[in-house]
């Protein structure tokens, strides 16, 4: 569904449903260089099970017009303006990687708008290696290769995809190939620069879920575990043997954890 945010087209996947004010809402926010379809199975499930879903394409990604936003804080504010455009007062937020930083910041800044947050593939600080950043800045293929290889558990290229007939590496590379120049770099830099994690975490009173891939190379479990302590309370679910791309690598386990977390205490 197309919305207008800041005078530009902003797309959010709604699982082919109209927004219904009587239903609770879940907004899904993707990671750097990705789009709404990264949450395809999970967002579709909730859209057909009593929720409004808004799986967003951040500016410059997927179907939303650019340019890409340069900071996590700007993305957090954009999410709220998208909720405004959709006439949604309160929503649960689910974020992956850069999207997880975004929903954390959003919940801290707008506690009245956010009922709970699920943080997938999340660590703080989310530092990006200089080599990765530099390759992305130059829009080099090497950046897409790093994103693809480090973005999945090591066993992925030598194992089966839960989604029959699909090749995870190929899908990731095809998505990245569609990006305009500098979109990946802008996202990675925003992750690298974000410095508000601990302060935002300390502010939260809403329920928090960490979904952690046990073989995540980008946001390693040990870094995620250390950051969990910054919250007053947070639930952690470890998904073996997933890497950073939990929604693709462990789609059912990710969905089951989200169902457990989002099916209680989520009101319109």
């Amino acid at each position, binding site marked *: 569904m197309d919305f207008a945010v800041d005078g530009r087209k902003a797309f959010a*996947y709604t699982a082919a449903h109209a927004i219904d004010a009587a239903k609770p809402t879940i907004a899904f926010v993707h990671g750097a260089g990705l789009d709404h379809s990264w949450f395809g199975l999970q967002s579709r499930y909730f859209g057909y099970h009593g929720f409004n879903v808004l799986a967003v394409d951040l500016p410059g990604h997927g179907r939303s017009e650019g340019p890409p936003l340069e900071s996590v804080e700007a993305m957090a504010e954009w999410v709220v303006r998208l909720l405004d455009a959709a006439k949604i007062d309160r929503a649960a937020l689910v974020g992956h990687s850069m999207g997880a930083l975004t929903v954390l910041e959003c919940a801290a800044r707008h506690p009245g708008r956010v009922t709970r947050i699920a943080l997938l593939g999340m660590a703080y600080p989310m530092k990006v290696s200089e080599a990765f950043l530099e390759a992305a800045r130059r829009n080099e293929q090497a950046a897409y290769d790093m994103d693809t290889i480090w973005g999945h558990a090591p066993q992925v*290229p030598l194992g089966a995809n*839960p989604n*029959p007939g699909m090749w995870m590496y190929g899908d990731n590379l095809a998505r990245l190939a569609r990006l305009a120049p500098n979109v990946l770099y802008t996202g990675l830099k925003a992750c690298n620069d974000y410095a508000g994690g601990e302060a935002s975490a300390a502010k939260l009173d809403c329920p928090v879920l960490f979904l952690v891939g046990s073989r995540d190379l980008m946001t390693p479990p040990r870094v995620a575990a250390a950051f969990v302590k910054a919250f007053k309370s947070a639930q952690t679910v470890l998904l073996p043997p997933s890497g950073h791309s939990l929604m693709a690598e462990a789609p059912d386990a990710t969905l089951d954890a989200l169902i457990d977390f989002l099916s209680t205490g989520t009101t319109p």
Partner: protein
Amino acid sequence: MPGPKYPGFDTLALHAGHTPDATFGARAVPIYATTSYVFRDSEHAASLFNMERAGHVYSRISNPTVAVLEERVAALEGGVGAIATASGQAALHLAVATLMDAGSHIVASNSLYGGSHNLLGYTLRRFGIETTFVDPREPENFRRALRDNTRLVFGETLGNPGLDVLDIPAVAAIAHNAGLPLLVDSTFTTPWLMKPFAHGADLLYHSATKFLGGHGVAIGGVLVDSGRFDWETSGKFPQLTEPYAGFHGMDFEEESGTRAFLLRARREGLRDFGACMAPMTAFQILQGIETLHLRMPRHIENTRKVVAFLAAHEMVDSVGYPELPTHPDHALAGRLLPRGAGAVFSFDMKGGREAGRRFIESLRVFSHLANVGDAKSLVIHPASTTHYRMSDADLEKAGIGPGTVRLSVGLEDADDLTEDLGRALAAAKRGLKAG
């Protein structure tokens, strides 16, 4: 600091798509000879049907053994995914049926496998899909044949049987400028010799019956999507970019831009046309793929020896192999096919049809049959077999003469192959003298 590294082709050929069986630890890919899959409960069933969870419902749509083959070929080609089909012809039909309706038009190379020529030139025409065939040697011919209702540009990486090398970068650019995808039949080259997506093709398919399976034991096809073609921007494919009443109003491109084509091909094409692959077939083709990287170099090595032998033989008028300087696509082959120009080629014998008959019937190692890409060496006379439905004029356009013989060079001792050919050519020569 060196960046991370992808697994090599040889490793992917052996491992991609298969996680060893968690229940019994089977290392080989199990053959899941089952039509259907037990649901955990009604909710699980509904979620599978509505594409909210990944998994298998019914083996016409997907099957765990077949899925290993699909993922492995997609990995070797660098695609987003693949769909295995009952044959290579079924793969071509699935691509066409997914992309267009009656009233659509295809621009295709005229240097095609006879079965593909039949499908496009005759059978699809009955269903309102027209094809214009063009000489692929001049890429501009594809542009000149485009119409407003064109929905696909199509050719073979190596044309059958003349081995015209498709200039994929040039033809892809023409297709993309017109907002159209380029589909290639990559059967003769396999991903070991060439990866068409790296040169700009958008979709490809294999007759997996040939080199992928490699042993002449199973019929199958695999259709692979690069995931790079932007259906939404093209605006010519409402099948992928508008809600589909046949699947709960799904807009496949909205679900996923990179997977839209395969989603519709599987959820409509396999569901409704039903040309799926059997799990036993997938297993057999997987056994072939596990040695593809070993077989293809030997195919090429033997082919080069056989080509050299024939090119120097007094009974041979011409040999059509792109690595020879006399082949019109010699330079293009050097650019697109540096590892070799395949193991199937044709040559023209002196003495015409009768000499050809005598030659074929005198061979002992080469088998006379209608197939290519076997581990065993094969021979056929196209004018009387694979292309027999084509008119003389169309045969000439496809570069086939009455004395054209096609070889598929196998993995035998190359000396035995040249000895066999030499003996048969001598028999053909004796026949000419006797005549």
